[in-house]
C-alpha cells in the first residue's frame, strides 16, 4: 500500500518539478504574474509535504530552505534578480536530483548540496535561518502512552468555552468523548451563569463544565485534546494533590458525582512534574483573540477575493483525466495488434474461399479494417504524450553545459505540444541530452569569439518538434560555428575510419561524426566527451526505428534532425519475396519501385552493379545475397527493384524477387527470441499465419557494401562529371 502511494508521490514529484521549471523559466522571461510565482511555491511545498510523509528528511530539509527563500520572493521581500533566478534554477535542479536519489537510492553530490544550502541561506533572514524544520503541534504533543500503564491520576478539568469557539465548529461534546478515551470521565454541567430566559443573548456562551478524568495518560494527552480550542476557552487542568487543601473539596465533588473515587489513588503522591502547581497556562487572554478576529478575515478576504475570481476566470478547469497503468494500455495495444493480424487472416481466408460472390463480405471486411485502424489510432493516442516535459528537461542540460563550459546559451523550444509515443519520449532523452551537450560544447562559441564574429554573445539552440507525413521530426539547431569539416575529415583519416585519399561530399563528412569511435574532443571533456561519440545517438535513434541526420553551414551553425516513426507497434510495410522467403520492407524507406529488365543493369568494376534510372545511376544491393540466402547473381535482372534512401540521403536499389502486397503489419520484437540479426529489424505475422522478417534497408545497404557504396557513388559522380 505505502509502496504504491510512494510511487504516486514520485510520479507527482516529476510533474511538480516540471511545473516548477516551467514557472521559473517563465519568471526568467519576465513573467510577473503572481500566480506563476505561487505555482512554483506550491510545487516546492507539495514536494516537501509528500516527502515529509515518507520520512525523506534530506529532501524535506532542502525543499524547506528552497521554499523559505521562495516565500520571501512571493511576498516581495526579495527581489528576483538574475543571480537569484539562476540560484533558484540550480536549486530546482538539485531538488530533482534529491528526488531521484530518494527514489532510486544513491547519494547526491554533498559538496554541491552544501554550496546550494549556503547560497540559499544568504537570502534568508536570521530568524528564518534559525528556524529549523521540525513538525510540531499535535503530532508532537500527543505521545501515546507506553504500554505499561503509568500510575493513574485524577485530573480536575474546568472548561468554559468562549462564544468564539462555537464559530469554529468545535463541539464540547466531542472533546469530552475524546477525553473519555483516556480514562474514566465524569462530567458535570455548570449552568450557574445562565441568566433568565429574557436576559439571554444569542450566541453568548453561558455554560461551563467540570470534569474529572482518572487516567494513566500524561497531562500532555489531556492538553492535546483541547489543542484546537486553545485560546477559545477558559481551561484549567489540575491533578489531585496539586493543592493539599483541595483534596477535601475534590472528595466532596466526587461524592456529588456519585462516583466512588479510588482512595488509594487519591493518596498517591503524583510525580513531581505533574503535581507541581501549575498556573493555568492554556487560556490566552480572550480579548486578544476577539480583537484580532475581525481584522484578520477582512485582510485575508481582501487579499484573496480578486485572486480567486481571476483564477476561476483563467482556468475554466482542466480537462478531466484518468490515470491508467501503462500495462493496461500495452495490453490493449497488443490486442489491437492481434486484431489487425486477425483481419489479415480473415481477408486471406475469404480470398481463398470458393464462393462465387464475396463482394458483400468484402465490404464488411473493409469496414472491419477501418474500425480496426480507428481503434489502433485511438489506442496510440492514449500512449501519445506531448514532448513538453522532455524539452523542459533539456533546458536544464543546456544550463548545466553552459555553466560547465563558460559559454552562454539559451534553449528555444518550438512545438512542445507535439505528441509522441511515451516510449519514444523516454528513449529520446539520452540521445537528445547528448546532442544538446554537444551543441553547447562544440557548436556554440565562447562569448568573446561570438562577439568578434558579430554574433549575439548569447548562443541560441533551437529544439523543434513537428509531425511530418506520418513521422515525428525533432531538430536541434544551434547558431554556433558550424562543423569544422577539414578537422573532421582529418580525424576520421587519423583514426583509420576512412582511407587517406578518400573524397567525400560535405554531407558525408558531416555524417562521419556518427561513426563508432569518433570523437573530436581533444581531451575527453566531462561534458559531451565521456569517451562516447555520436554513434550512441545514432544507435538509440535507429533502435526506435528512426533516422538521424546532420547538416551544417560554416559560421552559421549545425542542425541535427531526428526522424522517428509515430508508433513502435504497427507500421505500413511492403510484403516482398526474397529467395522463397516472405519479407516486409518498411514503406517509409521506399522511394520508388520498378520492374527490372536487363537494360537497366550496368556493371561497374569486378563486383559492382548499378541500376540506371532515368539517366542517373544507383548501386544495386541484392537482398538475398546480403542476407546469405543465396550467392549473388549479378548480371541477371532481379524481379523488382525497391529504390530506398539511406539516412544520409544516398540512394540504393534493393533487389527482391517479387512484390505481393502493401499492408499494415504489427511489429513483433525479435529481442529475446533470436537476438540481433543483421539486416532484420523485427518480425511480423502475416495473414496466412506465417512469420515474416521485417527488413532494415539501412543496415542491409551498409552491411552489404558500405565501402562500395561510397566508392561506386564517388566513381559514378566522377564518371558523370567527366
Amino acid at each position, binding site marked *: 500500500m505505502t509502496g504504491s502511494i510512494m510511487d504516486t508521490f514520485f510520479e507527482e514529484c516529476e510533474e511538480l518539478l516540471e511545473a516548477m521549471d516551467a514557472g521559473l523559466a517563465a519568471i526568467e522571461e519576465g513573467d510577473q504574474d503572481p500566480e506563476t510565482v505561487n505555482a512554483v511555491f506550491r510545487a516546492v511545498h*507539495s514536494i516537501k509535504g509528500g516527502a515529509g510523509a515518507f520520512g525523506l528528511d534530506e529532501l524535506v530539509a532542502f525543499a524547506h530552505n528552497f521554499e523559505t527563500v521562495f516565500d520571501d520572493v512571493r511576498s516581495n521581500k526579495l527581489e528576483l534578480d538574475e543571480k537569484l533566478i539562476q540560484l533558484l534554477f540550480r536549486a530546482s535542479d538539485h531538488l530533482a536530483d534529491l528526488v531521484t536519489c530518494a527514489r532510486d537510492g544513491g547519494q547526491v553530490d554533498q559538496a554541491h548540496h552544501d554550496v546550494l544550502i549556503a547560497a540559499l541561506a544568504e537570502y534568508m533572514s536570521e530568524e528564518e535561518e534559525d528556524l529549523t524544520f521540525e513538525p510540531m503541534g499535535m503530532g508532537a504533543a*500527543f505521545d501515546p502512552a507506553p504500554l505499561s500503564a503509568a500510575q493513574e491520576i485524577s485530573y480536575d478539568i474546568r472548561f468554559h468555552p468562549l462564544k468564539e469557539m462555537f464559530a*469554529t465548529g468545535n463541539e464540547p461534546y466531542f472533546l469530552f*468523548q475524546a477525553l473519555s478515551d483516556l480514562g474514566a470521565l465524569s462530567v458535570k454541567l455548570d449552568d450557574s451563569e445562565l441568566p433568565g430566559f429574557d436576559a439571554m443573548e444569542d450566541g453568548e456562551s453561558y455554560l461551563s463544565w467540570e470534569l474529572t478524568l482518572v487516567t494513566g495518560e500524561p497531562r500532555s494527552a489531556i492538553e*492535546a485534546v483541547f489543542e484546537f480550542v486553545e485560546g477559545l476557552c477558559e481551561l484549567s487542568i489540575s491533578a489531585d494533590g496539586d493543592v493539599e487543601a483541595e483534596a477535601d473539596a475534590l472528595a466532596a465533588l466526587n461524592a456529588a458525582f456519585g462516583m466512588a473515587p479510588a482512595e488509594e489513588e487519591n493518596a498517591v503522591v503524583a510525580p513531581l512534574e505533574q503535581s507541581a502547581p501549575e498556573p493555568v497556562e492554556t487560556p490566552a487572554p480572550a480579548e486578544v483573540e476577539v480583537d484580532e478576529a475581525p481584522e484578520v*478575515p477582512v485582510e485575508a478576504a481582501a487579499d484573496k477575493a480578486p485572486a480567486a475570481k481571476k483564477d476561476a476566470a483563467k482556468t475554466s478547469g482542466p480537462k478531466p483525466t484518468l490515470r491508467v497503468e501503462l500495462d493496461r494500455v500495452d495490453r490493449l495495444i497488443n490486442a489491437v495488434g492481434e486484431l489487425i493480424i486477425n483481419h489479415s487472416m480473415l481477408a486471406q481466408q475469404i480470398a481463398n474461399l470458393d464462393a462465387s460472390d464475396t463482394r458483400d463480405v468484402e465490404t464488411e471486411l473493409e469496414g472491419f479494417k477501418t474500425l480496426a485502424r480507428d481503434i489502433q489510432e485511438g489506442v496510440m493516442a492514449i500512449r501519445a504524450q506531448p514532448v513538453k516535459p522532455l524539452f523542459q528537461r533539456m533546458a536544464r542540460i543546456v544550463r548545466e553545459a553552459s555553466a560547465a563550459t563558460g559559454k552562454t546559451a539559451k534553449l528555444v523550444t518550438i512545438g512542445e505540444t507535439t505528441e509522441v509515443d511515451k516510449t519514444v519520449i523516454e528513449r529520446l532523452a539520452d540521445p537528445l541530452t547528448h546532442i544538446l551537450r554537444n551543441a553547447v560544447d562544440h557548436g556554440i562559441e565562447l562569448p568573446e569569439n561570438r562577439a568578434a564574429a558579430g554574433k549575439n554573445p548569447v548562443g541560441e539552440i533551437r529544439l523543434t518538434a513537428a509531425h511530418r507525413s506520418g513521422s515525428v521530426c525533432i531538430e536541434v539547431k544551434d547558431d554556433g560555428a558550424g562543423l569544422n569539416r577539414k578537422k573532421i575529415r582529418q580525424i576520421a583519416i587519423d583514426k583509420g575510419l576512412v582511407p587517406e585519399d578518400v573524397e567525400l561530399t560535405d554531407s558525408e563528412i558531416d555524417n562521419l561524426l556518427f561513426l563508432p569511435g569518433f570523437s573530436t574532443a581533444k581531451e575527453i571533456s566531462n561534458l559531451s566527451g565521456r569517451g562516447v561519440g555520436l554513434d550512441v545517438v545514432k544507435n538509440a535513434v535507429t533502435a526506435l526505428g528512426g533516422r538521424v541526420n546532420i547538416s551544417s553551414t560554416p559560421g552559421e551553425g549545425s542542425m541535427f534532425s531526428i526522424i522517428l516513426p509515430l508508433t513502435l507497434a504497427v507500421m505500413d510495410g511492403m510484403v516482398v519475396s526474397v529467395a522463397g522467403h516472405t519479407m516486409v520492407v518498411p514503406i517509409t524507406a521506399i522511394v520508388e519501385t520498378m520492374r527490372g529488365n536487363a537494360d537497366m543493369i550496368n556493371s561497374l568494376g569486378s563486383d559492382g552493379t548499378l541500376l540506371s534510372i532515368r539517366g542517373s545511376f544507383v548501386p544495386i544491393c541484392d537482398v538475398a545475397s546480403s542476407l546469405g540466402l543465396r550467392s549473388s547473381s549479378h548480371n541477371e535482372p532481379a524481379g523488382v527493384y525497391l529504390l530506398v534512401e539511406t539516412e544520409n540521403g544516398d540512394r540504393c536499389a534493393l533487389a527482391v524477387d517479387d512484390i505481393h502486397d502493401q499492408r499494415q503489419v504489427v511489429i513483433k520484437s525479435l529481442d529475446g527470441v533470436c537476438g540481433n540479426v543483421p539486416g532484420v529489424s523485427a518480425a511480423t505475422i502475416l495473414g496466412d499465419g506465417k512469420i515474416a522478417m521485417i527488413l532494415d534497408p539501412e543496415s542491409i545497404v551498409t552491411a552489404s557494401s558500405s565501402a562500395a557504396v561510397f566508392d561506386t557513388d564517388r566513381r559514378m559522380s566522377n564518371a558523370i562529371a567527366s
Partner: protein
Amino acid sequence: MKTKVLAIDDSRTIRNLLAACLEEAGFEYHSAVDGREGVDIYPDVAPDVVITDINMPNLDGFGVIEELRGDGINSKVPILVLTTESSADLKARARAAGATGWITKPFDDESLIFALKRVTGAVA
C-alpha cells in the same frame, strides 16, 4: 452511518495517504483537487467533516473556509486545515476564518484519526 470526510488537497500523494488511512479506519472518503472543486462539490457530498490544504491553486484553503462558512453555504461542519508549518500565525488566520482545527503534515494515521475524533466524535 459512516462518517463522511471531504479532503481537499492539490497533492495526489497527500490525497492518497488520506484515502488509505481514512478508508482503512472506516470513514467514507471524498476528495477534491483544489479549493474551487472542493467548494463546488461540497453540497453534493454533504460531508460530516472537511479536511483542506492551505496552498492550492484556484482558491486556497482560507478561501475554502471562508466560502464554506460564508452566507452562501453557511456550513457548520468541522473544518480541519492541513499544514506543513505549525506556525501560530497560520493557525490564527485559519481559525479566524472559521477553521475548527489543524493537522500538521507529515501526519501519521493515529494523529489524523485523533484530530477527526476531537471534532466529529467519530470513532470511524
